[in-house]
């Protein structure tokens, strides 16, 4: 099986072959194929949304996805939650000497597939190869450009007391899918990463529903962390109804086994939407009509009480604090 060597990063013949035979072959389009130092993009009359993210996940093939899929969806979603239509992606690869060529091809093919699904073009890129042990197999950075849709003004500043909070589906699947493949926790789970491009769903939502105040994707640290970020510097509190938070039995059983709280487990394809109460029902209907929003649920609201804090109402009707994550959720025995 052929492997990536330092020569592939030298800029010479092997680099060119790598670019032609893998990157251009799978990701090619009219912009990329020009192979200029920068991609010259058509004029657009709209505010530009611009984001960047780096992906270092391990294992890089996991149940429900891979690092390539993640690198496209993560950046697409970061644009989409701000009300922008994602259009162009740039990507940088850092490859560790010794990476299997076959793995690289699979990852790039995955990126091509999901870019097509999301409707974005990869218009520029870069590759570097580093010595063995200088990088963990493969790191990918993607930057994304999107264009803000007319009439949308999303921001934390729009949030007011009485607004409702929606989550677009089952939580904790991504983190559990990854844990199931980690060395000693080795268990067979039905959980698949929820990594997915959510832009079409969110465009359908903003096209048909008014009153959306703010959106954010709930990634590392889980739903609890993202809610705390939203509440943190503001003069409102958040109350979550524990019973309404959608969690699959599959993710629940893994959390029961390992002593974890699903509210703090990572997601990759879930958005928290703060919305005017009056628009809640319509928003849920639109989301549930999309394959990535089937389990969308209204889980809480913005409150006057307990500003800057996130509280949880338990099934028994009592309330407790749902605090900030202090460190990586670690499976416990005691």
């Amino acid at each position, binding site marked *: 099986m052929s492997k990536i060597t330092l020569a592939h990063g030298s800029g010479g013949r092997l680099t060119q072959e790598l670019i032609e035979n893998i990157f251009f072959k799978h990701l090619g389009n009219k912009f990329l194929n020009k192979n200029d130092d920068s991609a010259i993009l058509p004029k657009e009359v709209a505010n530009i949304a611009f984001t960047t993210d780096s992906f270092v996940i391990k294992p890089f093939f996991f149940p429900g996805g891979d690092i390539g899929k993640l690198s496209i969806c993560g950046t697409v979603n970061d644009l989409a939650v701000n009300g922008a239509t994602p259009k162009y992606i740039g990507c940088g690869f850092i490859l560790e000497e010794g990476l299997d060529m076959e793995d690289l091809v699979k990852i790039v093919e995955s990126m091509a597939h999901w870019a097509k699904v999301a409707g974005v073009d990869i218009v520029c890129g870069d590759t570097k190869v580093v010595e063995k042990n200088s990088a963990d197999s493969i790191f990918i950075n993607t930057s994304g450009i999107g264009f803000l849709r007319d009439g949308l003004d999303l921001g934390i500043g729009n949030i007011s007391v009485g607004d409702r909070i929606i989550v677009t589906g089952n939580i904790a699947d991504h983190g559990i899918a990854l844990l199931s493949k980690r*060395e*000693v*926790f080795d268990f067979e789970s039905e959980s698949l990463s929820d990594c997915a491009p959510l832009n079409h769903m969110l465009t359908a939502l903003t096209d048909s529903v008014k009153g959306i105040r703010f959106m954010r994707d709930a990634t590392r640290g889980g739903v609890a962390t993202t809610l705390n970020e939203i509440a943190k510097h503001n003069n409102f509190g958040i109350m979550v109804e524990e*019973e309404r938070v959608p969690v699959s*039995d599959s993710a*629940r*059983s893994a959390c*029961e086994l*390992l002593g974890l709280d699903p509210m703090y487990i990572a997601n990759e394809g879930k958005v928290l939407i703060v919305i005017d109460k009056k628009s809640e029902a319509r928003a849920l209907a639109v989301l549930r009509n999309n394959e990535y929003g089937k389990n969308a649920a209204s889980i809480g609201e913005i409150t006057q009480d307990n500003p800057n804090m996130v*509280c949880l109402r*338990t*099934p*028994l*009707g*009592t*309330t*407790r*604090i749902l*605090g900030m994550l*202090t*460190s990586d959720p*670690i*499976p*416990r*025995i*005691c």
Partner: protein
Amino acid sequence: MLKFIDEYRDKGLCMDIAEKIRAISKRKIKIMEVCGGHTMAIRKNGIHKIIGENIKLISGPGCPVCVTSIEDIDSILALSRIKGLVICTFGDIFNVPGTKGATLAKQRAQGADVRIVYSAKDVVEFAGSERDKNFVFISIGFETTAPTAAAAILQAAEEDLNNFYILSLNKTMPQALKAILEDNRADIDGLICPGHVSTIAGIDMYNFIVDKLRIPCSVTGFEPTDILTSIYILTELVEKNQAKLVNAYKRAVRKHGNEKALSIMDRVFKASDTQWRGLGNIPGSGLLLKDEYLRFDVLHTFKVDKVASIPENECICGDILRGAKIPSECRLFRNICTPSNPRGACMVSSEGSCAAAYRYGD
């Protein structure tokens, strides 16, 4: 639907039991839950808030991480500095600081080979497949976990592994219960007895509490219905001035426990005196390897320097572990002592009373 879990989380049933508790609760009483798992379950569900004003739930010392002495934490950290020795630990210990603020997490960031494991069995497998390294399993836990460590040692012996070790920090409950309950500071009226410790050790160890100390005991599971039913049982017994031992966790606890697990424990371990953080030395409450298995004791093979530990003067964890005081009565609670900067036993583990009170708030 998670079988043998969700049935005991029925909201209607729980609210019903809570109402019945409030109906019979006339006197002001204190019920202690010994086990950290019960503390977590109570706080997480807010059970302490629906049983009325008369019943105060007090957390006890059943949090193995909380009661691991700081000297033992320092020993673990010292072991992590030994080249070629891989530290294998449950996640619970990973972020617990030693005397100088070091943690296994920080040690790992500095290059120490520290692995979080789910089971002692995993460590035996590591040792079997990576013969060029030495592996030490940091064995914490009470009677529930000790047999699993013992089983791992027997497996290592059978596989003739010379690179598998344990650091035995296991403790047993009866002596600690005696020490706490015979000390009158806490003035406990009823005891929610540990569930899974009893699964292994049986329920006879609680007889002295009922017979001699006249405190009713209920062996309890970890789901809301289990805990609420036990609180009802105990409240009723206290109101009637009756001291009885009730097994309210029959699905997992037999009177004589798990005899096979106990015999394996007995084969590998012997009782010893040991330090409980916050409670001092409790004779006969520790477990050390018997001579036949001493070769698996990491301290028998690797030398570790003792670090002089500095006691935290204003920490009242000892009183909290005994149930004599609650977290909010500690000067350090919340301002100096927090989960990311714990100063005492009750804050170091997420299921310690102070950590639970901090995390879930009130």
